[in-house]
């Protein structure tokens, strides 16, 4: 009999079915309820924006993979997430070339200029959006509701104050309800807290994301806005907080890798978002908070590296 050949490699020889492409697929699925609701609310043009941003992201990724001679179906998958997310955080009125530029910037600059997968520091979708806000401020602040130009709840709050914002809805309860169900002006996929919550819980349930990050982030905003005498429910429902907390703050590449580091990261996000909203010039602070904390993540990570099992005991003994 011919000698058999056996594979010799390092243990373990046994793995969970936890693959990256699967994770990416789950994130896309989790985003769908909010995306579909956005298209339902804002019409076909919203769908076109999402399609453009997603396809440009895929094409840009393909181009860079070719350039680096590293063809990878998996990275195409993560480009889908980036493109879809970007589309969902844009106003539904944009001319279609705007999301195209945003997606290109997201993948080409935020991802590949930083060295590609594994090296990305800033959330690519948010970089894309920030670039658009800086380049086309007017277009990026033009929101609609039911086809009519309208301000987002946070814009109303910033411009006219709480009383007038709430009276716009009728009462504060009605305001909460509209915001929860997504019946407000805003970016395509960020308006309905309910749809985002469903997607977020789905990811938490499947252990794709850690429940602590969105909980601490949203919780911090809630507590801080309450302390500053604002309506905390209005604040957590009325903007991009849910999509940011569940889908962008939790992006693996922008946050510290350590367990405790991630908690500080989420706390920092909550504080920054509140500060920008209450004291800054912008009505919304989620986008920039996440980018700022992305920048701080490597430092937080370094400061929170834990001593392994068995070291603390040593110290105690020496005392």
């Amino acid at each position, binding site marked *: 009999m011919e000698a058999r050949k056996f594979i*010799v490699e*390092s*243990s*373990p020889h046994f793995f*969970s079915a936890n693959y990256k492409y699967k994770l990416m697929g789950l994130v896309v699925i989790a985003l769908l309820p909010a995306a579909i609701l956005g298209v339902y609310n804002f019409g076909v043009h919203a769908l076109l924006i999402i399609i453009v941003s997603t396809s440009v992201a895929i094409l840009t990724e393909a181009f860079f993979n070719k350039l680096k001679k590293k063809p990878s179906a998996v990275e195409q998958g993560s480009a889908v997430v980036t493109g879809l997310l970007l589309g969902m955080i844009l106003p539904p009125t944009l001319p279609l070339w705007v999301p195209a530029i945003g997606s290109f910037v997201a993948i080409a600059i935020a991802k590949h200029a930083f060295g590609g997968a594994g090296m990305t520091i800033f959330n690519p979708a948010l970089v894309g959006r920030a670039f658009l806000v800086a380049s086309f401020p007017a277009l990026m602040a033009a929101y609609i509701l039911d086809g009519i130009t309208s301000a987002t709840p946070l814009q109303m709050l910033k411009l006219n104050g709480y009383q007038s914002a709430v009276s716009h809805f009728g009462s504060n309860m009605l305001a909460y309800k509209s915001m929860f169900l997504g019946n407000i002006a805003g970016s395509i996929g960020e308006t309905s807290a309910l749809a985002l919550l469903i997607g977020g819980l789905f990811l938490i349930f499947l252990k794709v994301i850690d429940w602590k990050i969105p909980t601490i982030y949203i919780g911090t905003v809630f507590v801080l806005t309450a302390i500053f005498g604002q309506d905390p429910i209005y604040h957590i429902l009325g903007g991009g907080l849910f999509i940011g907390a569940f889908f962008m703050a939790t992006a693996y590449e922008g946050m510290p890798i350590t367990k405790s580091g991630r908690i500080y990261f989420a706390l920092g996000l909550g504080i920054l978002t509140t500060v920008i909203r209450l004291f800054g010039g912008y009505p919304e602070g989620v986008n920039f908070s996440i980018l700022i904390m992305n920048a701080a993540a490597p430092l937080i990570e370094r400061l929170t590296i834990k*001593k392994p099992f068995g070291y603390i*005991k040593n110290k105690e003994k020496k005392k």
Partner: protein
Amino acid sequence: MTFKGGIHPKYNKITADKKIEKANLPKKIILPLSQHVGAPCEPIVNIGDYVKTGQKIAETQAFVSAPIHSSISGTVSSIENLPHPITGKPVNSVIIESDEKDEKIEMQKREYENLPADELKSIIKDFGIVGLGGAAFPTHVKLSPPQEKPIDTLIINGAECEPFLTTDHRLMLERTDDLIAGIRIIRKVLGVKSVFIGIEDNKHDAIKILKEKTIGQNIKVIPLHTKYPQGGEKTLIYAITKRKVPAGGLPMDIGCVVQNIGTAIAVYEAVALSKPLYERVITITGKVNNPKNLLVRNGAIIKDLIEQAGSYKGEPKKIIMGGPMMGFALPADDLPIIKGTSGLTIFNKDDIDEKRSTIECIRCGKCIQDCPMQLNPSLIAKYAENERIDLAENMYAMDCFECGCCAFNCPTHIPLVHWIRYAKSQILKNRAKAKDKK
């Protein structure tokens, strides 16, 4: 009762209900003279010598070592360098051809109740007892803690957290009395009061029978949360006593000694029956037609054992000595089993992770969450890959005990343990070099 981190792999204990069977007498055995951690043995037989089953064929004067005994009767046909099954490096090996008579050395029952600890220890050494959990550390060494390290706790490791393997489980059920007798001997040698048997709570039957039979003997049976690697020495001690073995240290530093189930039974056999360690129970499992628990002679050839388990099911791709989490993939099936072999897990194409790829780390943090030593496997592996061994050492690479939890759940399937192992071996090399210079 548990520890931090860890994973929940599919346990696949397909042989849990299969009674231990006796394997056929091997026609030929190969005994590598380096069976365990510690100094290799020197042969004390010559080519052409007739040996009996249980006869000592190799020994050394070094303290951290255990003699080796023939597992069959027959003639020494050769003493030559053959590849070691695990390391693959050539080691001096004794080959014995069987006369198929299985003529045993005289094994007398011994009245051991009144023997002093030192004598018990020298019996344990003389009969070649080593830890049967995998590392095959000579048992008498573990039972000889230095004066300044008093031992107050003996833990018997019945966790058997490694997927697929069921030898300890079967031994607890089928050899309960011998096991308890063995535990009592070890307890006497160590002179300790508290004895715990830690068993993962998926083995109810073993917990039940041991609880019943240890009543009034001052032995506590502790059901443990079923989680891998519950049976790692450090995790097991922590789960039961909440003591932490200091980094770089040994269980004896915190007053603990851990012994495996099979080892305790081997101790009993050596002390009470004068039986040297020449056979042990292994699980043959995975893709074989008739997976089972077999009592096999040391040095038996893997291929023959697999035939006795109904032979390969489909085309085998991987032979793992041990279980799938910490076992070693072997390059061939004509190698012998050794004292530390707890099982043979056969994998074919369907079990091989072909998606193992070159995607970079996505920083998901799973490996950190799961590492029972609370290391940062992603970072250590990255440093090792880039030859920054110094940085890997700073990140505590040496504290990794290669349990494999990190790689198990890594979504990009980075061979984390491979890189960490590499880092560890380089660190050890560097340290040895530094010593030489001094």
